């Protein structure tokens, strides 16, 4: 799941001989923007923290045995009642260490965000490919649905899905997939329409290869660059949408709080000046989204054939 986020993760391998391969050129062009490189490093750190959360967090925020309600709503930097741990980012109303809560929340936010963006990508790319390859009726039906759906704002579509299906993590994933597949479908179709007139597709057709093979082995790989760019951006959007839905109380259940739900939990205390319960999860969310966007922006510049030097 995090593979989608970590797309360009291996930056360079100096041990190998310096040969100008496409991948190497891609890496060096990507690294030209220090901002994007910084974003990539931040994302990598966030992913590592999320994966290792059970091992590196100061506290297991869902083990009720370690929580002490007496430690509720402590300020950042306060010591726990028994002096065992310092709450660097304060505690929430249950006496839960915010830092640990954020680490676990990141896990859920990233999994739901990247996972649903990935599923949306599969669905959207397949339909987009099918539309471009089949043409005619199939194409116009699929693209009509895409047009119709893109004319409605994401939040409305997501609300609709959740109103139909009820609240649960699975339904949030379904909602995000339904919201996002159309972007992938449109992007892939656009590229595939150009690619399918190329000679190599004609050659593959002359070899009488099965249709799925032409679609997924010949056409799809050549549509990947724009798909990667859209994919990166959509992961950020998925994380933001999940956070929004959870904040509204329509997303993940209270037992598996994502960043959005953590923020919602602290919201009522914000007015009384206890800002940290909402503020720090918010910062974590912000950093994640901005970092992914920075990487996506640079990917777009690097992968855009029109801008290639």
């Amino acid at each position, binding site marked *: 799941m995090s593979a989608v986020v970590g797309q360009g993760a291996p930056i360079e391998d100096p041990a190998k001989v310096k040969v100008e391969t496409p991948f190497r050129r891609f890496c060096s062009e990507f690294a030209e923007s220090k901002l994007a490189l910084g974003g990539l490093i931040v994302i990598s750190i966030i992913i590592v923290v999320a994966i290792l959360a059970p091992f590196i967090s100061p506290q297991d925020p869902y083990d009720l045995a370690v929580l002490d309600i007496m430690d509720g709503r402590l300020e950042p930097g306060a010591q726990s009642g028994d002096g065992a741990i310092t709450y660097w980012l304060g505690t929430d109303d249950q006496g839960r260490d915010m830092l640990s809560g954020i680490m676990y929340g990141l896990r859920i936010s990233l999994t739901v965000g990247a996972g649903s963006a990935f599923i949306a990508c599969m669905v959207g790319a397949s339909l987009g490919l099918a539309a471009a390859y089949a043409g005619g009726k199939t194409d116009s039906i699929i693209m009509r649905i895409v047009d*119709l759906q893109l*004319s*409605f*704002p994401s*939040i*409305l579509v997501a*609300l*609709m899905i*959740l*109103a*139909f*299906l*009820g*609240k649960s993590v699975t339904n949030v994933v379904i909602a995000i997939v339904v919201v996002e597949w159309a972007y992938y479908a449109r992007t892939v179709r656009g590229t595939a329409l150009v690619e399918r007139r190329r000679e190599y597709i004609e050659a593959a057709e002359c070899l009488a290869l099965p249709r799925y093979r032409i679609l997924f082995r010949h056409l799809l790989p050549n549509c990947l660059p724009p798909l990667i760019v859209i994919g990166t951006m959509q992961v*950020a959007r998925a994380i*933001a949408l999940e*956070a*929004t839905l959870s*904040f*509204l*109380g*329509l997303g993940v259940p209270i037992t598996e709080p994502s960043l*959005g739900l953590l*923020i919602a939990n602290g*919201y009522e205390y*914000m*007015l009384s*000046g206890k*800002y940290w319960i*909402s*503020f720090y999860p*918010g910062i974590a*969310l*912000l950093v994640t*989204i*901005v970092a992914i*966007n920075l990487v996506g*922006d640079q990917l777009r510049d690097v992968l855009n054939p029109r801008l290639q030097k």
Partner: protein
Amino acid sequence: MSVYLLRRLIQAAGVVLAMSIIVFVGVFAIGDPVEILISPDADQMERERAIAALGLDLPLWQQYLIFLGKAVQGDLGRSFVFNEPALELILQRMPATLELAFAATFGAILIGLPLGLYAGLKPNSLASKGIMAGSILGFSLPTFWVGLMLIMVFAVQLGWLPSTGRGETVEILGTRWSFLTWDGLTHLAMPALNLALFKISLVIRLTRAGVRETMLMDYVKFARAKGLSPFRVTFVHVFKNILIPVVTVTGLEFGSTIAFSVVTESIFAWPGMGKLIIDSINVLDRPVIVAYLMIVVLMFITINLVVDLMYSVLDPRVRLDSK
């Protein structure tokens, strides 16, 4: 023109019909309405009588036709929670939402146009780069997060603006409006800014792109060569031509402003229909959910239609017969 108008109207009606089917099937067929509509203590006889009374024993398509027939007459059922007609409930809260959405749209134009103009005229200055970076943030930050930060800074830390509610209102034509009193305005400022943020970024980018494109046009060069003042060139010759796309997009965005007000209203406890729908989803108040979805979809399609038609009137290059 009239053929085009007719065709667009039929198209729009088709979409409304399709959406009504989706909403009906989604809300009434996926869940079990019997569970919610009939009290669990009812015995078998009572249950069957209630099912028959509600028409739940009919085939789905018949149920849909009944639903559609009532919907056309403005009857979308009664709210389980408020025990009032769902449509009335939504309409009562609509002015608050519309007020917020209009305030956000005007705010976006008032803030976005000058900034975009500046960024387009001086693309390499530091301030322009700052404006563009800010607009990227405006695009990517979740609305609710920005809303929380606004509350934290302006309501809690500085204490300048109230954080929730509509404040003092004035009643005009039977509806209450906040923007006519000072207290109401201070209540409106933060939610409107919050809701406007995305649109400000959008207007900035559109204006900047428009200005940069138009500045290279021959007629601008000619105006300059004629010796017109830069002020006149910018505000008469360039400005007029960038306004069309800005107005169109802002108009099209109005529908999504209403949809996104769901988030803003929840944060600032703004008593509009967005807050109502969230509460209704939480308690599964189906008639209200249906009424909200149908009204917003209808609004959306109307806005799209009007903008489409206006566009073809404003811009003669849009060939009507080619569609």
